[in-house]
């Protein structure tokens, strides 16, 4: 009898759960995005702070999983640093390291592997 009651209770509990919770697909890229890095658009790049010393967190939000590039350009738009990375669809919390950059203003450019720009932002290095 005790076993029957336990089984019944389990069914009752399941019955109380919303359908949405059961039917939602499993998200493989569950990232805890700080409020300062939330990107409302489907893709883009955002830094936690515009003025940067040593390093800063950035959110790279992508339309699909794949190979992307983060480019750093100087005031004359010349490319001075480029990272190629594999990243997941959605938010990706990464970092920009600026210790080897001169104190100056730079633009951060997010592109796909074919150099098509997905987002752009700026930083000011103040080491």
């Amino acid at each position, binding site marked *: 009898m005790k076993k029957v009651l336990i089984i019944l209770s389990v069914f009752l509990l399941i019955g109380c759960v919303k359908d949405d919770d059961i039917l939602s697909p499993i998200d493989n890229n569950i990232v805890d995005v700080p409020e300062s890095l939330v990107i409302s658009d489907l893709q883009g790049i955002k830094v936690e702070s515009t003025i940067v010393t040593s390093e800063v967190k950035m959110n790279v939000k992508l339309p699909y999983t794949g190979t992307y590039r983060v480019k750093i350009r100087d005031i004359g738009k*010349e490319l001075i640093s480029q990272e*190629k990375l594999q990243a997941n669809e959605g938010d990706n919390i990464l*970092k920009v*390291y600026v210790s*080897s950059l001169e104190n100056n203003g730079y633009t951060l450019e997010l592109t796909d592997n074919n150099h098509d720009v997905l987002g752009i932002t700026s930083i000011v290095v103040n080491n």
Partner: protein
Amino acid sequence: MKKILTLLVSVLCTLNVFGQSSMDYSKVNTVTQVGDTLIVKYQYFKGTDVNGNDMPDATLYQFDIQHNNKLLDVIENAWQPTSNSSQKAVNTWNGYKFTIDSEKDQTDFDGQYLSWLSGDATYGTNADWSVQRVTYQDVTSLSSGDEIMKVSYKIKDKANSNYTDYTNLINVNWANYKEADGTQIDVTGQSNIGLTGIQGGDAGNVSISVSSNVITNNIGDGSDFSYTIYAKGDTQTPLASGGFDAAGDATVQGLENDVEYDLYVSIDSSKEYLDNVVTVSDLALVFAEAIGAGNSPNGISTTFDYYLQSILANVVGTSIPAGGDINFDDSYEILAYLQGVESTNTTFISKTNDAFNISGIKSTFGDEVNGIATVSPTFKPTDNDKSFQFAHTLGGDVNFSHGFEPTSTNADIPTSAQSTTTQRSMMVRGAKLNPETANLELTSELQNGQVVLTIGSQVTDMIGAQFNITYDKTRLVLDNVVFDTGNEMTNFSNHLEESGKVNIGSFDQNFETNIKTGTPYKLIFIPIVELQNTSGLITFKVNEGVKADGTQIKFIMD
């Protein structure tokens, strides 16, 4: 009747002209410079009548002199008559200027005197002028031509005044000569004394500027440069020094007009970009010269475009002006520098904390004299020329990447003296060394826990290339440099660990083999902190290639 009257007036006028005595004032000495002493003598001349007979003698000689006190300073009044019976006086009023009676000639000195007495000529206040009244009286008359007084004036600098020249300095306002019985004597004279060609004096604001590709190409700016001014021929005692502004301009004060000075421009040697002055492009130019024109610049042929390049390329050994030459000593010295090999030689390769400055007047920068490039530091401010342009370049910078490329036609090596393989004289003057461009890809990424920088190239006609890489030494350690440039290449890697820099590149000294396409260079770093990605960890500054003819290739990176 009318004719008679006209004739009478004419006769009277003629009598008047011939009968006047004069107050003559003239310069005793020649003056040319501010600070010189001008001596003016004031002289009595007795008049004559129409028949040539002397006019009556005077016993009173009185006249007013005014001088521009902004341009002259009275330093002495010296009486010239030696009579013991004379009475003499000089009175001075500063801040007054005579306004003549315009109804009379200015040089009608006795007439102006009478007008002054009647109030038709007046003294008004004027801070720029001073008046001296000279009075000499004696029972014995002066002889015609006797000097009454010599006045010494010191010439002042007009830069401190509102005057632009010295053309009106001294006027006699009026003269009062009287006979012993009080009869007024007619007196005439000249209107003024002025001077021309006075040199020297404060030059005021003198504008100077510096031209360099450091400024033009935004490598740095004009504030990275400074100047030092010496008397011409001196290099020991600076007369003035200072910095240029961001645009490369400066204003110098305290110089004198019509004086020659030497000005030398220096670059702030602490600037890190100076490590990028001498690169594989310069190396290629020097190697080509050493191979193809061993006896240049005085010899038969040269690969250079400008005489000045022979000075810049001569980084070791006897200097060009002293009979030196561009040879393999110079090219291998540069190669050793790029490879990070310490040289025991004294070299003239510009780098951070070790800049070899060369500067001179821009318009003649690098001009050839007797087969040798020259630069002139000399300039001379004058009233009409207070703006001077200078150019600057650096030892070892053979392709002028951080210097001023000459624009004077006299700086060009004639095509007839150039090696036929390197003639670029059809290009625009001052742009002979303009680089070509080519696309290249430099990317960093995390691979198996390592940070890998790959340099991908599809450029097919490079005999040399160089990449100056800066990395975050607080997070990375350089582990390895992998070259895949081809078997004929001389590769170099200069790791400056303390500053987190590594310069890599390749060069074919025979100018025959090109660097392999694909991935000729790969740098492998070990992270010393946990990394999720590599953005910003590795940056690149100098990225350039060079073709067999010495043309620089500037890489455009995607």
